């Protein structure tokens, strides 16, 4: 491995996205990463490649990756890759990286991606930055990003001019942001949580011209030291509040029409790629299960966007969400303490405000 990583970094070209499939279905995080990878590849003037591992994955699904920006897809097909195993996937990924030498590899920060990424980075002797929220190669674009999101005096700060991947992520529970680089080793690896990057509209022309290379890997059953006995879906999906990028929480304010209030929160969360949280009042009343509870006795969250609907803002709730990057509060009571921690507050009836909010965000998303 030492020889591999001692090579000139300039020998590495191209941006790769690991396109995760489960049960033959490409996961949506793959489209988000391809959309982001496309921008990086354009800035670098290089190819964007998707890497799919699986067994008998529908070719239409693979070609569709071109519609999200991939110039090329390596499809590694083997019965041994049907379900994810660390050993099988890491071997195939590392072998391919060593052969093709990409400069950037993006992986979804799913429960599987967070298993695969570090195993590969350790084998390849390169750096990996977890849960990135922003990626740049171009220094000017990075400076523009800092202007709107940081306290850095951009014009009086020196920036080295290079195309190293600048990987920004929250540090220390989101109290600080850090931009990480991996200047000496390739590929530069990064994981990104689902929902953080936006999927660009599907492009038919891209899907038509994507080059798919089907590869049969040098992988044998002996390479895999674990055995998948079973894969079970939970009867009930647990809400991943902690890892969520956006949390839309409901409070006592939904009491006049609980079902509608929850439905609105779910719809808003859906539009923003987020999940539904709740105040203790809501979970104590049994309107939502306790895994939704945000607060001192529930979960502490620090999403990019936290929306509090009809939550007064009791200290115990605020303790669980005050470190969210942007807090939006909707409450009928203008003196509700939630407005003291909110970045933006609207005094109003959530049953009126939320439908309007959903409509407008949809319109913006469609226009972007």
């Amino acid at each position: 491995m030492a020889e591999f990583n001692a090579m000139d970094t300039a020998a590495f070209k191209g941006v790769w996205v690991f396109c995760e499939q489960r049960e033959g279905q490409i996961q949506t995080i793959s489209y988000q990463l391809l959309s982001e990878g496309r921008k990086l590849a354009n800035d670098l003037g290089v190819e964007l490649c998707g890497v799919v591992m699986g067994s008998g994955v529908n070719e239409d699904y693979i070609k569709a990756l071109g519609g999200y920006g991939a110039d090329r897809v390596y499809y590694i097909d083997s019965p041994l890759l049907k379900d994810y195993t660390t050993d099988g996937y890491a071997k195939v990924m590392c072998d391919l990286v060593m052969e093709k030498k990409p400069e950037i590899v993006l992986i979804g920060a799913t429960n599987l991606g967070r298993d695969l990424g570090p195993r590969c980075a350790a084998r390849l002797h390169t750096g990996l930055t977890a849960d990135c929220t922003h990626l740049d190669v171009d220094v000017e674009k990075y400076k523009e990003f800092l202007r709107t999101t940081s306290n850095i005096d951009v014009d009086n700060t020196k920036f080295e001019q290079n195309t190293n991947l600048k990987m920004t992520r929250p540090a220390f529970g989101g109290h600080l942001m850090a931009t990480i680089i991996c200047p000496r080793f390739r590929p530069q690896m990064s994981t990104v949580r689902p929902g953080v990057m936006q999927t660009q509209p599907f492009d038919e022309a891209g899907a038509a011209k994507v080059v798919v290379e089907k590869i049969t890997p040098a992988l044998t059953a002996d390479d895999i030291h674990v055995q998948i006995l079973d894969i079970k879906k939970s009867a009930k999906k647990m809400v991943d509040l902690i890892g969520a990028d956006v949390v839309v929480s409901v409070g006592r304010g939904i009491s006049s029409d609980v079902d509608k209030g929850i439905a609105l929160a779910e719809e808003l969360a859906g539009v923003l790629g987020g999940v539904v949280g709740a105040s203790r009042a809501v979970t104590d009343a049994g309107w939502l299960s306790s895994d939704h509870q945000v607060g001192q006795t529930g979960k502490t969250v620090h999403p990019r966007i936290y929306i509090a609907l009809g939550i007064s803002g009791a200290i115990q709730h605020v303790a669980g969400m005050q470190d969210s990057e942007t807090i939006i509060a909707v409450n009928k009571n203008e003196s509700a303490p939630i407005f003291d921690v909110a970045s933006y507050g609207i005094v109003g009836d959530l049953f009126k405000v939320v439908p309007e909010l959903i409509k407008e965000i949809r319109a913006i998303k469609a226009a972007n």
Partner: protein
Amino acid sequence: MKAIVCVKQVPDTQGKVAVKADGTMDRAAMATITNPDDLNAVEAALQLKDATGCEVIVVTMGPAPAEGMLRELMARGADRGVLVSAREFGGSDTFATSQILAAAVNKIGVGPDDIVFCGRQAIDGDTAQVGPQIAEKLHLPQVTYVTDIQKNGNDLVVKRQLEDGYMEIKVQTPCLLTCIKELNTPRYMSISGIFECYDKPLDVFDYNTLKDDPLIEADTIGLKGSPTNVYKSFAPPVKGAGMMVESVDQLVGLLNDKHLI
């Protein structure tokens, strides 16, 4: 048979976070705790000890005061502690940290029926990288996000959490498992444990202890051996606390301007 548990002392980021004027974290001003997922890893090891009588060794890399955490874990039932501590190890990223911890685990020795436990991730960095990276360096099979462990001889059947369910995986020892809070409820220190913990062995592995391991090279450990570096760190812009907006229209406009939606 041994259960080797890698643990980390972390600032209590759930509590008050102190930030210095230069934007870095003021660790000295913050309370420290044992990383929560690591307590589940320790508990898993202690349950294995309850069932099999195996030895439980807790290993941490950190400054000298981390000994206090190791003593506390010994008061919970761990048999001995290893403090990995040297100036040369400072400034390590996850890659370099895993080189050092893997070397420490090598020094302890991984036998055919041993299990290395880690917490899934630490609350200060939230990377979940060190466990898998140690496994790679030790050439051990890994299972991450473990929520259940059944042991039958050298075979383990473990449940690995997925976003929407779980995988049931058979893996043989020696192996490395990363644990999450759904796995168990960590026990408290016992009174007798507190009395005994200062009599239990605690070894310090410094640079000289580990330097002969091939994993320990000038270009694989510490700040110099870390593939990743911090390029810039910064605080988010000050929140507009309590900024009231008049309409949804205005709100959506603001969010769009800030690229939040």
